[in-house]
C-alpha cells in the first residue's frame, strides 16, 4: 500500500525549485532520492515535513500521506502527524540536539506529547529506545548534555527520537554525510536494522549512490527539480536508463572496477539538463 504519494509537485522560492516531482513510497520501503546539491532533493523532504522557507510557494501538485492531503490540512492536524507518523533523521547530528537540555527530556518530550505517556513511562521507554540504538551506559547518556557525546552517539540518539513513536514514514536527510566513514557504516546498518524490525517507510535523501546501494529498495534520481528516473534499486544499478544516471554510476567508485574507470559526469550533459529545465519553465 502506498504511504506517501507526491504528484507533479511544483515549488517556487522566487525561482522554480521543483518542476513537477512525482514520487511514490510504499509501506516498509526504503526509497532513495539521489541527486547532487542544488537538485532539489532536500526541498522534497522539506515539503513533506512542512518546513518550507518563508517565500516558498507550492504552485501545483499534491502530497498525499496515508490518505491525507498534506498541503491542505490544518496546522494543528499537521502538528499531530509530525513527530508521531512522520519524523526526521537530520543531516547534522552536531547541531540538531538542543544544547542546553539533557538527552532524556529530548526523547521523552515526543513520547509524552504524542503517546500521552506519563513521565515515568516515558523515561522507561527512552531507556529502551537507547538500548535499541545500541547505546551502552544508557543511564549515563540520558543524564548527559549533547556536547558530551560524539557525533555518532548523537546521531544514534536522533535515530532513537525518530523511531520513538513508531512512525509510518521517516525522512532521512543525508543522515550519514556529516559523520566519519567508519561511523557512517554503523549508522546505516542501524537504520536498516530498525527499519526492518518496524517496517517503517523511509525517504532516504542522499547524494551518494554507494549509500543507496546499501540500504534502498527503490531509487529516484533527481536533477534540476525533476525526477529523471525511478526504479527498483537492483534494476537501476543493473540497467540505468537515463544518460544522467549512467554518468552518475560511472562517477561512483566501486570495488569491482579499477579506479581509472571513474569518469566525472560530463559538463555538456549537465548543461543540457539545465537547458531542458529552462525550456520547461518557459512552457509553463
Amino acid at each position, binding site marked *: 500500500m502506498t504511504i506517501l504519494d507526491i504528484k507533479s509537485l511544483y515549488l517556487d522560492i522566487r525561482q522554480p525549485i521543483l518542476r513537477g516531482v512525482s514520487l511514490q513510497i510504499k509501506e516498509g520501503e526504503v526509497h532513495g532520492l539521489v541527486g547532487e546539491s542544488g537538485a532539489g532533493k532536500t526541498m522534497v523532504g522539506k515539503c513533506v515535513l512542512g518546513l518550507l522557507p518563508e517565500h516558498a510557494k507550492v504552485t501545483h501538485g499534491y502530497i498525499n500521506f496515508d490518505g491525507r492531503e498534506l498541503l491542505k490540512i490544518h496546522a494543528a492536524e499537521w502538528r*499531530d502527524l509530525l513527530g508521531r507518523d512522520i519524523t526526521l533523521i*537530520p543531516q547534522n547530528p552536531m547541531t540538531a540536539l538542543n*544544547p542546553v537540555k539533557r538527552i532524556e527530556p529530548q526523547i521523552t518530550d515526543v513520547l509524552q506529547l504524542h503517546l500521552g505517556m506519563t513521565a515515568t513511562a516515558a523515561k522507561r521507554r527512552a531507556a529502551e529506545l537507547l538500548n535499541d540504538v545500541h547505546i551502552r551506559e544508557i543511564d549515563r547518556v540520558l543524564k548527559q548534555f549533547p*556536547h558530551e557525546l560524539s557525533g555518532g552517539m548523537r546521531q544514534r540518539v536522533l535515530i532513537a527520537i525518530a523511531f520513538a513513536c513508531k512512525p509510518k514514514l521517516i525522512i532521512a536527510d543525508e543522515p550519514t554525510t556529516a559523520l566519519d566513514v567508519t561511523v557512517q557504516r554503523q549508522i546505516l546498518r542501524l537504520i536498516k536494522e530498525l527499519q526492518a524490525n518496524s517496517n517503517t517507510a523511509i525517504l532516504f535523501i542522499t547524494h551518494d549512490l554507494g549509500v543507496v546501494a546499501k540500504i534502498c529498495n527503490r531509487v529516484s534520481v533527481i536533477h534540476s527539480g525533476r525526477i529523471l528516473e525511478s526504479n527498483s534499486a537492483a534494476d537501476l544499478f543493473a540497467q540505468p536508463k537515463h544518460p544522467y544516471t549512467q554518468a552518475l554510476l560511472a562517477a561512483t567508485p566501486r570495488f569491482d572496477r579499477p579506479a581509472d574507470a571513474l569518469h566525472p559526469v560530463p559538463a555538456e550533459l549537465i548543461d543540457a539538463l539545465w537547458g531542458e529545465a529552462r525550456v520547461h519553465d518557459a512552457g509553463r
Partner: protein
Amino acid sequence: MLIGYWLRRLFWAIPTLFGVALIVFVLLRVVPGDPIAMLIPPGAREADIANLRELYGLDKPIWQQFVSWLGAVAQGNFGNSISLRENVLSLVLSRLPATLELAFLAVAIALLLGVLFAVASVYWRGRWPEALADGFSGLALAIPDFLWGLIFILLLGVLIPVMPISGRLDPSLDFNPTTQFFFIESLLRGEFRVLASLISHSVLPALALALPLAAMIARVLKNSLNEAMNQDYIMLARVKGFTRRRIIWREALPNALIPTVALTGVQFTFLIGGTVLIEYIYSYPGIGNMAIGAVIQRDLPLIQGLVLTFAVLFIAINCLVDASYHWLNPRVRQR
C-alpha cells in the same frame, strides 16, 4: 576548578576596591573646602576647631589619613559620620536593605518586561506587536531612569494621583520590624497590608529603574531568539510537532538567555547606580538617597563608606551575572 575561578575573581576584586578607595579619598581631600566648617557654629574658638580636626584626623597629611583609614576599614571600622554623628557602617547597613529590595524588585520587573516583549515580538514576527515592542524598547532605552522617575511622578502622582510618590511605607501603618528587609519580613509575618503599602510605594521607582534595563534585555534577547529560531534543533522541535509557543518558550528561550545575560551584564550595574537619583527623587530611605545627603553635607567618612559600598555592590552584581551565565550554559558549567 570552579572554586579556583571564583577565588581568583574575589582576589582580583581587591585591587579594584583599593583603587576606588584611593581615588575617592584623594579626590575628597585635594580640593578646597573644609568639612569642619559645616560643624562649627559661627564664632567658635580656634582651639575647638583644632580639636574637631584632630578628632576626625583631618590635621594629618593625606597619605597618613589614608593609611589609618584603610587600616580601620580592614577591621570593619569605617569611622563616624560627621553630619549624622553615628557609626558609618551601622548607618549604611541600616539603609542597605531598602536599596537591595528596591533593586531586586526593579530587576524582576525588567526581566519580566524584557522577556515578554522579546518573546512577543518573535512570536508575532512582522506584525504589529513587533513594531510595538521595538518602539517601546527604543523609547525606554533613550530616556534615562532619572527622567522616567520624574515622568511617573508627574503622570501617576500628580495629574492622576493614584500612586504614592514618596517614602517606603505608609507612616500610619503599625509595623514594628526587627530587620530592615521590610518586604521579606512582612511576607513572612503575613502582614499583607504592610506588603501592599510597600509595593505601592516602590513600584514606581522600581519601574523607572527597570525600564532602560528592560529595553536592553528586550532588544538583545529578541536578536538572540531570532538567531536561535534558525538553528537545527528548532527545526527538529518543529518536526516533533511542538506548537510555536512551546518552541519559543521551552526550546529557543533557554538558549537565547545565555548571550543575553552576557550582553546585558553592564546594564545591571547601571541599575544599581541609578538608585542614587531615583531614591532621592522618591525620598526613598536607601543608601542612594543617603549618598546625596552625604555629598551635600560634605560628610567625608560617610561618602567614602557609601562609595565603597556601591563598588562592592557593583563587583557582586558582576559576579552574580557571571554565575548565572555559568548556570545557564551547560557547556561552561561543567568545565
